[in-house]
C-alpha cells in the first residue's frame, strides 16, 4: 500500500466540495445524476489503474523525465502543455471558488483582491518546495484535518434532520438517462491520480491492488456524502436552491457542547488548509511541468516569471469572474477535463506498453 498515492487521490475527493461538484450533481438530480455517478465510478477506477500502472514502469520519475529523451519534441510539449493548462485551471477554479466562499462567510467586508494575496503568498511558498517536501507537507495537513472530517461526517450521518426519505427519493431517479455534466463532475472525485505526472517522483515501489480497492471504497463513500448528504438535509427539492450545498449543510449542524457551536466555522477552517493544499498540489504540478517543458537550466528569474503569470491569472479571475459564471464554466470544464484525461491515459498507456515491451 502506498500512502502517497492515496493522499493524492484522497485530496481530490475532499476538494470536490469547493469545486462545485455537489452543486452540479444536485442540479441534475432528477435527470441523470444518479446514473452518471454510477457510471463515473468504474471509469474513475479504471483510469486510476491504467495510468498509475503504466507510470509504475518508471519508478521515481516524473513525466518530464520519462519523456525527456523522446524524439517527438512537439508531441511531448503538446501533451505536457495541455495537462499543465488543465491542472493550472483546476487550481484556479478551486482558488476562485474558495475565495468566494471566504468572502461570503468569513470576511464579507474585505475585498476579494486583498483576500487572495495571502492565499497566493502561501501557495507560492509551497509550490517552490521540492516535490518530496510538498508531499511531506500534504501528509501533515491531512493528518491534522482527517479527524475533523471524520467527526463532521459522523455528525451529519447521525443527525436526526438527515432525511433518508429525501435521499431515497432522489435514488428513485436512478433510471434516467445519465447526464454528461454530472458524470464528468463525479469522475473529478477520482482524478487525483493525474497528479502522479509529477508526484511519481516520490513513489518508488509498485502500487498494489489494495490501493485501488481502498480508492474504490473511499470514492463511493465520498460520492455518497457529497451528493446525498446535502439532499438529506435540505430536501430533494430544496437542496438545489443553495449556491454551496455543502457549506449550508455544515451550517445546519449544531455542536451543543463545543466551544464553537456552529460547525460551519470548523468546516471552513478545515477547508482553508485543504483548499490551500489542493491548489498548491495542482499548481506545483503545473509549475514543474512548465519548468520541464523548457529544457534549459533552472534559474530563479524564470521561476519568478512563471509565478507572476500565475498571479496575473488569479487576479484577473478574481476581477472578472463571478460565482454563477464560474459555476457554469466549471461544468463545461469538467467535461473537457474528462475528455483530456481519457485521451492522456490511453495514449500514455499505449506508449508505455510499446516502450517497455
Amino acid at each position, binding site marked *: 500500500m502506498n500512502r502517497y498515492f492515496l493522499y493524492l487521490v484522497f485530496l481530490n475527493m475532499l476538494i470536490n466540495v469547493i469545486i462545485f461538484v455537489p452543486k452540479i450533481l444536485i442540479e441534475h438530480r432528477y435527470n441523470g445524476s444518479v446514473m452518471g455517478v454510477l457510471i463515473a465510478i468504474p471509469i474513475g477506477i479504471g483510469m486510476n489503474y491504467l495510468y498509475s500502472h503504466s507510470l509504475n514502469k518508471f519508478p521515481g520519475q516524473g513525466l518530464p523525465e520519462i519523456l525527456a529523451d523522446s524524439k517527438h519534441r512537439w508531441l511531448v510539449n503538446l501533451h505536457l502543455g495541455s495537462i499543465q493548462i488543465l491542472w493550472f485551471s483546476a487550481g484556479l477554479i478551486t482558488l476562485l471558488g474558495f475565495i468566494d466562499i*471566504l468572502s461570503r462567510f*468569513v*470576511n464579507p467586508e*474585505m475585498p476579494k483582491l*486583498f*483576500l487572495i494575496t*495571502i*492565499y497566493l*503568498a*502561501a501557495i507560492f*511558498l*509551497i509550490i517552490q*518546495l*521540492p516535490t*518530496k*517536501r510538498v508531499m*511531506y*507537507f500534504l*501528509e*501533515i*495537513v491531512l*493528518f491534522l484535518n482527517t479527524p475533523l472530517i471524520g467527526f463532521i461526517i459522523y455528525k451529519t450521518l447521525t443527525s436526526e434532520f438527515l432525511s433518508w426519505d429525501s435521499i431515497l427519493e432522489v435514488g428513485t431517479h436512478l433510471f434516467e438517462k445519465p447526464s454528461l455534466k454530472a458524470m464528468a463532475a463525479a469522475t473529478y472525485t477520482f482524478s487525483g491520480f493525474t497528479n502522479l505526472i509529477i508526484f511519481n517522483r516520490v513513489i518508488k515501489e509498485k502500487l498494489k491492488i489494495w490501493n485501488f480497492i481502498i480508492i474504490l471504497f473511499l470514492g463511493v463513500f465520498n460520492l455518497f456524502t457529497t451528493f446525498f448528504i446535502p439532499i438529506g438535509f435540505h430536501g430533494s427539492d430544496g437542496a438545489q436552491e443553495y449556491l454551496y450545498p455543502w457549506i449550508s449543510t455544515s451550517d445546519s449542524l449544531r455542536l451543543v457542547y463545543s*466551544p*464553537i*457551536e*456552529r460547525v460551519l*466555522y470548523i468546516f471552513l*477552517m478545515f477547508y*482553508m*488548509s485543504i483548499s*490551500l493544499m489542493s491548489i498548491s498540489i495542482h499548481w506545483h504540478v503545473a509549475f514543474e511541468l512548465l519548468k520541464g517543458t523548457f529544457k534549459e537550466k533552472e534559474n530563479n528569474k524564470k521561476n519568478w516569471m512563471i509565478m507572476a503569470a500565475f498571479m496575473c491569472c488569479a487576479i484577473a479571475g478574481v476581477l472578472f469572474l463571478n460565482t454563477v459564471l464560474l459555476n457554469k464554466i466549471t461544468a463545461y470544464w469538467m467535461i473537457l477535463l474528462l475528455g483530456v484525461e481519457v485521451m492522456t491515459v490511453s495514449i500514455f498507456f499505449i506508449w508505455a506498453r510499446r516502450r517497455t515491451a
Partner: protein
Amino acid sequence: MPSNKVQSIKEELKEKIMQSEDAVFKELHTKEKYIEALYIKTISDETVIQDYVVKPFFEIATAETFLAYLQSHPKVKPFESEEQTLEELIRGVAVLFYQDFIFIFDSKVDRNNSVLDTTVETTIQGPQSGLSESLPTNLGLIRHRYPETTLNVESTTIGEISKTKVMILHDEKLVDQDVLRRVKEFLDEVDIQMFQTGEQLLDLIKKSNRALFPVMLVTERPDRVAVNLAAGKVVLLVSGSSFAVILPTVMKDFMASMEDIYQTYWVSIFLQVLRYVGFVTSLILPGLYVAVTSYNPELFRFQLALSIAGSRSAVPYPSFVEVVIMLFMMELLTEASIRLPKAIGPTATTVGGLILGQAATEAGLVSNIMIIIVSAVAISNFVVPINAFSFSVRIVKYIILALATCFGLVGVVLGFFMFLAYMVKLDSFGQPFLTLVQTKSTKE
C-alpha cells in the same frame, strides 16, 4: 639533533615567549646532568612539573637513566617542529631541553573539569549532572556513557584568533555518511574570529546569518548526547563550553525532553501531546483572539461573545493594540527575570504578573479575557523543552498576530500553515526539519 640547532631553537623560543611576565625558564643542575625547562606558569600545572620532572631529576643518578625515564614517560612527547612547539607552549605544555634532545612535557592545567549540574534542561527523574567546561572531561563522560568501539572522535579547530578545539563524535556504524560529510564541509566553511561555544553555530549555518529556527540542538546533558549518538547523529564538543551540539536535528528532537525516556509509555505520550498542544496554543492564541473578536465574533458561543464584549467595553483601543501591549509587557517580564539575580527574580514576576495585570484590568486598559490569554501564551511557551526553539516560537506568534490583524481568521489559519510549510522547507544537514513520519536517511 646537533647541539647548535638545539641552542638556536631554545633562543628562538625564549625570544618569542619571554617578554610576558608569566613565562618561566628554569635550569636544574646536578653533578652529572643539566636540564632546562620553558613553560608559562599560569596555564601549566607546576606541581605536575615538580612531581614528574624535578623530583625524578634529583632522584635518578645517571644521565642515561634519566634520559630513558623521560623517553618512556607517557606525558612526554618528542619535538616535532618549532611552530608546533610554540603552539603547544601557549596551551600550557613545558618544553624540556636535555642534552641534545628537546621534549614536550604535557603539563596543561585543566581548570574547569568539574561536572556541573543541569540548569537549563532539568528533569525530575534521570541523571542530574551535565557536561563540564573541559573537553577531555566531557569526552570522558560521553565515552563512559557510550562504551562502543565504533565511537569515532576527530578534532578540528575553529576560529581565527580563538583557535578553539572542536571534537566531532559519531558512531561509525550508525552515522549517515552523507550527513557526516555535510557537517565536515560546514565546519570547514565556518569563518569566525572568536569561537566560544557551540551556540554560535546556530546562526552561522545560514549563509545570510539570519536564521529564525535552530537546526541543531545545543544540550548540556551527557545522557542526551549518548542517546543521540546511538540514533546515528553527529555530536560536536567545543573546548571551554559545557554545551554539546547535536546535528542534524529536526522538530521532533526539539519537542523531546530526556524525561520521555525516563517515564512510562503513556505518561511520555501524554507529555508529548501536551507539548505540541502548548506549542500550537502559544503560536496562534493571540492571533486567534484578534481575529475572533474583531472579524468573526460568530465563532464564539453567544454567551461567551457577550461576556467578551462586556469586558472589552471599557477598553479604549482596538483589540490588536491591546494584545500587542500585553504581549510586550510579558516579553519584558520574561526578559527581566532572566537578567535579574535569582534572589530578586520572583519579586519581578509577582509585581509584573499579578499586580500589573490586576491593575491594568481595574483601570480598564485591557480586558480580563486578555490577561488570561497572555498568561496562557506565556506558560505554554515554556512548555517547549529546548530553549533555543521556544525563543523562535516567541517571534513567530507576532507574525501570525500581524496576519490575523490584516486578514482575520483566514490570516490565522494560513499563517499557521505557512509556518508549517516553512518548517517543512527547512533542512538540517539534508534532513527535512518537519515531517510526519521521520524516515531515516533520505537522500534528496
